[in-house]
């Protein structure tokens, strides 16, 4: 979790990832942020995130993103 949080903070500085459970629903992240985050996750974790995975439930919180990564790694 800490490693992902650090990656996210480096990728999109200025966004409080740890303090929100509704990053998409509350429009804290926009489409550009999402694509930047997706690229960073794919490069770092070696997973393939497809367009179909780009739903709010997968990106609303750090825990949700970690869950997505773990599912794709399984």
């Amino acid at each position: 979790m800490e490693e992902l949080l650090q990656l996210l903070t480096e990728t999109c500085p200025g966004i409080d990832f740890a303090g929100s459970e509704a990053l998409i629903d509350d429009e804290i992240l926009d489409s550009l942020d999402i694509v930047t985050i997706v690229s960073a996750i794919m490069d770092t974790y070696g997973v393939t995130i497809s367009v179909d995975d780009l739903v709010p439930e997968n990106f609303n919180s750090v825990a949700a993103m970690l869950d997505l990564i773990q599912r794709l790694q399984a």
Partner: protein
Amino acid sequence: MSFTSLTFLVFLGVLVVLYYLVPRKFQWALLLLASYAFYLWGGGKTVVYLLITTCSTYLAGRLLGGLNRRLKALPAEERKAKKPSFDRRKKQVVLAACLLNFGLLYILKYWSFTAEVVNNASGFHLPAPDLLMPLGVSFFTFQSIGYVIDCYRGKYAPQEHLGRYALFVSFFPQIIQGPIARYDQLGPQLLGEHQLDWDQLKYGIQLCMWGYFKKLVIAERIGVMVNAVFADVWGYSGSMMAAAVLGYSIQLYCDFSGGIDITRGVGQMLGIDMAENFRRPLFALSLTEYWRRWHITLGGWMRDYVFYPIALSSGFRKLGSFARKHFGGVMGKIFATSMATFVVYFVIGIWHGANFRYIAYGFYNGGLITAGLLLEPTFVKLRERIPIRWDGKGWHLFQMARTSLIVFVGRYMTRAPRLITALAMIRATVTDFQLQSFTDGTLLSFGLTAFDYWVVALGMVVVTAVEWYQEKGGHVRKWMEGRGALAQWAMVMVPLLVIVLLGAVGQGYVAAEFIYAQF
């Protein structure tokens, strides 16, 4: 049948009465009948295009749903092995649906332009038949293709009943100018059973009246002056050109957002909550935010079906890796995404029509937004060095004014007849700005009186005040409900009187189409 015609009001009145009288299980069928009657009234023979799009995307949805179902039913191991083959077939279905429907859209909307450019450049004689443009073709094509792609992605199961799907594509309030709906949001509402809710009916009527106020009192009125200047654009000074473009900006906003208010109001009267298409773009602090607030459903469509697939494609990912390796820093991180953003805004530009001015409009928006993204690190450093309150009201007002100015310049391109004219008008605005033309009576030579200008100005004050209240979190119609019965009655009657007395109706009035209907 224009929303602003008496025929439409009668049509709507009869429909609403029948809608709540027929057995609820037939409500969707009544809406389908009404939608096709509405389309045939305005679109005539071009209904054939609507039918082609409806049938082809319905079929594509069914095929994709079948493939998804069959794949899901396979045992895990077999599913994994056969997934690539299923994916390939699904892609073929989507490709066929896109080629047919976007191909039709291309022929109808862009072929004349292509033929003209090719013929001028090469001396060929490509035929350019004058095809009749189907009503709302861009809107129903985009909406249907969105449905096909969602079926491809397995977002939901396809609609199996052709008639019910046909209602989703043809629903009459939205077919002229959107909003571009998603099936999972609109479909269940269209097909659901609705009981008469007096509050919803009242809210719907109020929202329609607000839309009519913007369209008939403001947009139609200022449109007279805009048309007069653009009919003889070189007969006026740069300042009058700027005034006409400002007038056009007001006209376009009140016309489009007013039309959407009527659309959503009609939906609400029928118990259907349609997607929001505007979120007070006047208050946008940047061009990116402006596009998130203006024509929201088109932006959302572009994001989900163009931006994400491009940005996450292997080509753009390779470009991203290249940029990170060679540029480094923030620039390296966002370079590929910025390029994808540019493509999206370029597509939005040409979505408006086939003309060099729309291509330029796409470049203008895409270029500015991309430059803003790439230069953001520099702006951050600059902001750290300049000691002013970056979160203060003054800075916010400046950002709003800056955004409005950028949008205003872009409007030259969307209203001028040709790109070269738009550029020359921008030049004239700077080099030939004559303040005295605002006081020497020129403004009164366009067919509007001083009273008309006051009506437009006060109308815009009302629109801005209402939007400011909404921007602060206020809900106008709920606020109205908190007043006494007399005040509530007055708040319905006064706008109605304003529309009747000051709206562009009465003798000699020709029900006007909405500007976005042509896109």
